[in-house]
């Protein structure tokens, strides 16, 4: 029986798990004006428009890395994940996942990776998840011992026991997502593509999935490429992020470097002791703030932050002052625009 910890050592040898070179995907999308006449006209003469969903994207991910794959809606994240998991054929470029060309869809490749999509179910809705798990055991040819061992591990991490016997359609969204993850991981994939795994979940469920993914990565050394609109997912799990926008790679590197490069400023939150007619805009850019606790936000350049803070402490009747990094959402938003 393969042990999770043993496989961790093997997978953690720093080899390239995912290699993407100038990957491109262009969709042909039918297009027409609105209205009855255009609908009839479109029946006889259909017009198509090329949509470049992914354009010449290149990156490399090492074994055991956990990388956040970010971009606004329609940026090309899901299309890239679909190509890397063998669902879509690219229109250009190359990709190798664990040495396989994904869209050749070799059995050994499909056996060794998984794609979990938060908005789509791979489980059969009419039967309990336990039955779908048994089917996966047969499909992935897992021995009884391996299957029981992995299921127990997943149960420990996700607390599956109370929900395994209910038909999937009767599960809550959070419960279903736990089962989806477990179904996708029963065969111990070495590469995980996770597309919005926490979408629609409440904060507690999100945190639980995050903790699970972190533990899974630590225990198995699996390579994880994760898309999420929740920045908390990314900051909690990924030291490295890849950002794409309009199908093009915008950034590939560390999260902290991203802040430094894209948003080289800090936020000084200040609460004044007495109402004063002070002009705070002379210290930096005054930002609109929630102002619930009476604090005002001033954006200042990182290199000036020490001098400006000293000036403010000397010149203003300060009750409270904190220096904060800009919210990661803002940093990412700037990167999209950059």
């Amino acid at each position, binding site marked *: 029986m393969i042990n999770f910890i043993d496989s961790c050592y093997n997978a953690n040898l720093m080899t390239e798990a995912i290699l993407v070179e100038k990957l491109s995907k262009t*969709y042909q999308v039918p297009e027409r004006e609105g209205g009855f006449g255009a609908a009839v006209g479109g029946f006889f003469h259909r017009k198509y428009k090329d949509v470049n969903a992914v354009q010449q994207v290149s990156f490399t991910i090492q074994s055991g890395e956990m990388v956040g794959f970010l971009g606004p809606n329609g940026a090309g994240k899901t299309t890239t994940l*679909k190509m890397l*998991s*063998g*669902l*879509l*054929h690219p229109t250009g470029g190359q990709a190798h996942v664990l040495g396989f060309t994904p*869209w050749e*869809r070799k*059995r*050994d490749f*499909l*056996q060794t990776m*998984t*794609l979990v*999509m938060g*908005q*789509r*179910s*791979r489980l*059969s809705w*009419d*039967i309990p998840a336990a*039955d*779908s798990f*048994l*089917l996966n*055991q*047969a*499909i*992935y*040819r897992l021995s009884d011992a391996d299957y029981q061992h992995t299921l127990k591990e997943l149960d420990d991490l996700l607390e599956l026991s109370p929900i395994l016997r209910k038909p999937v359609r009767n599960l809550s969204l959070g419960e279903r997502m736990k089962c989806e993850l477990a179904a996708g991981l029963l065969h111990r994939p070495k590469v995980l593509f996770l597309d919005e795994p926490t979408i629609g979940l409440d904060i507690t469920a999100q945190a639980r999935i995050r903790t699970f993914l972190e533990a899974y990565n630590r225990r198995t050394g699996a390579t994880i490429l994760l898309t999420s609109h929740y920045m908390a997912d990314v900051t909690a799990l990924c030291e490295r992020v890849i950002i794409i926008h309009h199908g093009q790679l915008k950034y590939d590197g560390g999260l902290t470097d991203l802040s430094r490069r894209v948003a080289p400023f800090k936020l000084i939150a200040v609460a004044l002791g007495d109402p004063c007619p002070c002009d705070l805009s002379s210290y930096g850019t005054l930002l609109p703030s929630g102002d619930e606790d009476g604090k005002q936000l001033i954006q200042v350049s990182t290199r000036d932050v020490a001098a400006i803070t000293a000036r403010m402490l000397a010149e203003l009747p300060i009750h409270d002052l904190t220096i904060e990094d800009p919210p990661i959402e803002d940093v990412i938003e700037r990167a999209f625009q950059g």
Partner: protein
Amino acid sequence: MLQIYRRLWQVNWAEQWQYRANLLMYLLYWLVSPIVYLAVWTTIANSQGSVNGLTANDFVTYYLTLLIVDQLTSEITIHILAYKIQDGTLSGDLLRPIHPILTNCLVNNLAMKVLNFIVLIPIWLLLCLLFHPNFSSVTIYSVLLAIPAILLGFAISFLLGASLTCLAFWTTRVYSIGEFYYAVVLLFSGQFVPLQLMPPVIQRLAWFLPFQLFRFTPIEIILNQMPADVILRNYIVGVIWLIISIFLFNWIWRQGVKRFSAVGA
């Protein structure tokens, strides 16, 4: 591989039992057309004495045999697969290291057949009591000889049905193409009317098409009505069509998966 089929069977079996009303209505739909044809042709034969030598009882025997053969050789792939291509849910199947059509789809077809038979057999026995078919010509040998024809018929109809459904990779919606295909099958398989009542041109064409293996050939073999040389010819035609169907399905599936855009999923 056997373990995969066994588990797929359990899952499909459990799923199909979930919707009893749906199952029953589906079966009734399946029963309606043969019974209508039976009623129409027996009425005509009774009024004229016979139609091209076929008596009312011959029609009764033919259509009641058809009810069984129809269940065995027909397929429902379009209903299992087309919507998955259309809405992108096929993605989930494509991520597994098994062929979705030759495993899940095939087992789904077989599970539906077994379930249908559970309900069909009592209804069929009741119809036999009502219409008194003449099965005196049926022997154990004729039934055994028909088994390869039934297997050939199902294999070809399954592969052609799957190939047709794969057109959804290009057209997205495939149901109207399916309606046309099933109308052709109805005409050339001997379901609408026994093939010997068709105009000679249609009959000659039917011998070269695979559809006669879906209904007419197995029925006529079971009822001991088909000469040995015709059986041999139909088997040869069947094997040729099986080979064509395998190549066609393989090609269209590979091309289709390349085109698959996995919308929404």
